[in-house]
């Protein structure tokens, strides 16, 4: 099992870096090209959500991403240290219900629609979002 870990300060500018790293490792791990856009967007959403949560609760704390090649799956876990508010947004069809600020539940809905497999572990001390996609394995050369 190969693992890459990345920690970054809770700054919006770093979310793009996290997306790029995740996409590069997904490609290296053997995730199909057609799924890479989904990996990029889902990891970006998870990191954006974590950055917003940290900026509100603990701006000095870093956000951690773990990327693993695990038994034919490419698995990404994004961990934050902000207390979970467990906001669950229903399908946002009512314009009046939407705001132009970042919507936590909205981002989670996007992740759920993109990742092959998603688990969210909210706790009072932070949230882990684990996502995975099928992968062919690390090439030998």
């Amino acid at each position, binding site marked *: 099992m190969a693992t890459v870990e990345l920690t970054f300060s809770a700054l919006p*500018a770093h979310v793009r870096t996290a*997306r790029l790293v995740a996409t590069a490792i997904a490609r290296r791990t053997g995730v199909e090209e057609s799924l890479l*856009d989904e990996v*990029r967007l889902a990891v970006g*959403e998870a990191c954006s959500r974590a950055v917003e949560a940290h900026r509100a609760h603990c701006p000095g704390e870093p956000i951690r991403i773990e990327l693993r090649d695990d038994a034919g799956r490419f698995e990404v876990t994004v961990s934050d240290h902000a207390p979970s508010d467990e906001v669950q947004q229903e399908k946002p069809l009512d314009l009046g219900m939407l705001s*132009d600020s*970042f919507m936590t539940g909205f981002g989670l809905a996007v992740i759920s629609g993109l990742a092959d497999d998603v688990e969210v572990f909210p706790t009072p001390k932070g949230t882990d979002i684990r996502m995975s996609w099928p992968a062919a394995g690390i090439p030998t050369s």
Partner: protein
Amino acid sequence: MDLKLDHHNEDRLTIVEVEGEIDVYTAPRLRELLIDLVNKGNFHLLVNMEKVDFLDSTGLGVLVGGLKRVRAHDGSLELVCTQERILKIFRITGLTKVFGIYASVDEAKEAHGKDK
């Protein structure tokens, strides 16, 4: 790639050209532009997304915010987008039912003209 923004007026439409990535870092610039356009009396906006490489829920939130602002003035905010990877996020969130989405600027202009 960073975000590039431009806009120009054609008849009663304000066409907003967006190029690059719209995410949690760059979306505030698009939000500021949309607010500025509305504050200056541009209530019929057409956002051309054909050169957008990446859009996340923060960007969607900004577009929704813009739509709410123009609707407060009986205006419109419509999109030009044919990229499947961008359209997918609109479908996942159900926002294809909220925005008018066209295949080209000309198609949007024609549809807009018929509404008048």
